[in-house]
């Protein structure tokens, strides 16, 4: 005998502001500590930097108050905290390089990219009033995604940096179009799968307990998948191809709830990896560096050796449980300490304790995305939120797994922490999308015309948690897709 009461959803923008203050304290505190510990005094531009970060956070906060009042309150502070800590570490590595007469301005550029990212996220939140609009652009998104993936192969436009041809040079700056392609492809997969979910789930032969889909249902998806993989083989970027493949499998699983997809995906990926290791020497070198990292000749091999990986491991070992403290370690000894190996840099200076806190922040971020996917009422929003949340989580897994030698090292970026404009912009767009979808997931359904609030059992509460003035909106598709998962989860527990 139980009563299941869905809890009242409140906008909780005040809570967000409180968490935002904490996040800003983390960002500015890290920046100040870096200056204090490296040069012995506070950085000269600390006031300007602090004000800048605060303005960026507050701009998004105000945009949320105006445009998405029911958006999740934790996502924005978590993102700002990660971005700010990443900036502080990049500044710290700038200082270390400068001490070795190698003047870099990564931090300044990253700050500019952060500002641009926040601006882009605000634009997405203001322009995109309802995420379901994106569904109209399903096939446009497919084309855009594929073009973005192919772009670096265009002669004259694409450039090869460090062996991977994934950059596009545009007026002095280089961009990684693949970072944006992942958003376009997530939109395409969501739009396509939501229309074809039924046939993918139900039709098809059953072989040995595995329910396989029909080949013709897979047409467009296989095309996208084969194209992106083939192109990425030519662009020689393991990480991005792994990311696309993972996104593809995860969204199929989200749409169909069939474990056979996971099994099929793992099988295909395992086969592909083995084949790639046979055919491509650079993939084989990655495997070698992973399995035999501490062999002398593998360590010293100049391109593709395990030197970077092992130095990163020693850096983290030097950090220990509580880290050396901001500015007290030597993260600059690891090549690409500001981008690919920023996790090792943070592990050295913040220790296991700090690194775990950062990982939990990512966990919270991904969990909010998945929770949004559960809560939102339309299938497209579910798949899109689930897909982009998966992208963030998967990137973390691949990067941290690579740096800690759990899996072979691949060239993905840690969202928000690592140095890199394209990655930062793309991830801010992802955050804006999750915020937008979470707004419609948490927004209370408008009161039914047939059930005025006065009929509620306790009249003291008035019309209940109806939407405030000005937020009234069409209830979406109140058909069979409409469901109240709060009650659903409650019931499952009640039955247990």
């Amino acid at each position: 005998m139980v009563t299941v009461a869905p809890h009242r959803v409140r906008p909780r923008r005040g809570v967000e502001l409180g968490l935002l203050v904490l996040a800003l304290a983390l960002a500015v505190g890290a920046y100040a500590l870096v200056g204090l510990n490296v040069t012995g005094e506070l950085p000269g531009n600390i006031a300007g930097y602090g004000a800048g970060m605060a303005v960026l956070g507050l701009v998004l906060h105000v945009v949320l108050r105006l445009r998405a009042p029911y958006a999740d309150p934790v996502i924005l502070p978590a993102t700002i905290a990660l971005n700010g800590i990443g900036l502080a570490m990049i500044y710290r590595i700038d200082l270390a390089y400068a001490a070795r007469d190698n003047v870099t301005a990564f931090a300044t550029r990253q700050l500019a990219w952060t500002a641009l990212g926040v601006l882009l996220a605000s634009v997405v939140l203001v322009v995109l009033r309802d995420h379901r609009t994106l569904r109209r652009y399903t096939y446009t998104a497919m084309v855009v995604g594929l073009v973005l993936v192919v772009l670096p192969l265009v002669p004259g436009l694409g450039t090869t940096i460090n062996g991977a041809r994934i950059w596009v040079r545009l007026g002095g700056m280089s961009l990684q179009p693949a970072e944006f392609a992942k958003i376009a492809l997530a939109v395409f997969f969501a739009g396509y799968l939501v229309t074809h979910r039924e046939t993918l789930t139900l039709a098809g032969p059953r072989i040995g307990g595995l329910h396989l889909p029909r080949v013709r249902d897979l047409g467009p998806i296989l095309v996208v998948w084969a194209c992106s993989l083939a192109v990425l083989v030519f662009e020689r970027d393991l990480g991005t191809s792994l990311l696309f493949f993972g996104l593809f499998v995860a969204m199929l699983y989200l749409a169909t709830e069939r474990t056979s997809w996971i099994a099929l995906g793992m099988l295909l990926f395992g086969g592909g990896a083995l084949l790639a290791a046979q055919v491509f020497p650079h993939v084989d070198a990655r495997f070698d560096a992973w399995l035999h990292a501490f062999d002398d000749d593998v360590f010293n091999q100049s391109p593709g050796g395990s030197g970077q990986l092992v130095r990163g491991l020693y850096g983290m070992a030097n950090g220990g449980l509580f880290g050396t403290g901001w500015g007290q370690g030597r993260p600059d000894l690891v090549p690409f300490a500001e981008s690919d190996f920023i996790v090792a840099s943070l592990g050295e200076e913040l220790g296991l304790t700090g690194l775990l806190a950062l990982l939990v922040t990512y966990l919270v971020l991904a969990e909010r995305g998945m929770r949004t996917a559960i809560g939102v009422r339309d299938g497209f929003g579910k798949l899109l939120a689930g897909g982009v949340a998966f992208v963030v989580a998967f990137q973390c897994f691949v990067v941290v797994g690579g740096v800690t030698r759990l899996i072979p090292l691949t060239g993905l970026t840690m969202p928000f922490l690592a140095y890199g404009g394209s990655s930062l912009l793309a991830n801010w767009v992802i955050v804006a999308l999750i915020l937008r979808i979470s707004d419609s997931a948490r927004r209370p359904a408008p009161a039914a015309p047939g059930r005025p609030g006065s009929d509620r059992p306790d009249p003291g509460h008035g019309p209940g948690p109806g939407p405030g003035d000005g937020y009234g909106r069409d209830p979406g598709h109140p058909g069979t897709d409409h469901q109240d998962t709060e009650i659903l989860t409650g019931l499952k527990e009640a039955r247990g």
Partner: protein
Amino acid sequence: MSELAITLLRLGYLVLLWVFVLSAIGVLRRDLYGTRIVPRRRGARGGDATRAGAPAGDTRRDAAPSRLVVTEGPLTGTTLPLTSSAILIGRAPSCTLVLDDDYSSSRHARLYPEGGQWFVEDLGSTNGTFLGQARVDRPTPVAPGASVRVGKSVLELQR
């Protein structure tokens, strides 16, 4: 700066980091633990679930029903507050009321409000939905207190 100050700042920063993470989790606590479920004790009203809502209903005869009660079947005693949204009943996990019942279809029936009244609609189930003794073959209004049978479960709207 002294060694002590550096150490204190270093540990202080880690504490701040975890304060942030834990307060973020604190905000989500309610959401993580899910819906509030209040166990209800028998005896106060004296009757079983079928009659539990009756006294209140008598006093406000023309009021709209406020909850859906399961009166027979494995989920007996479970109540769902009626809101503005439709209630999907069936075995599929995506339903609002998930029945663990071999005789119900995955998406069996739907209850929805329209024009101040609640209607029941069969969604092409194998074993049918019954309102009282009559099989539901088109959207049919459900009066409070009338029993809706889905598989082995019986549901009732109560005020």
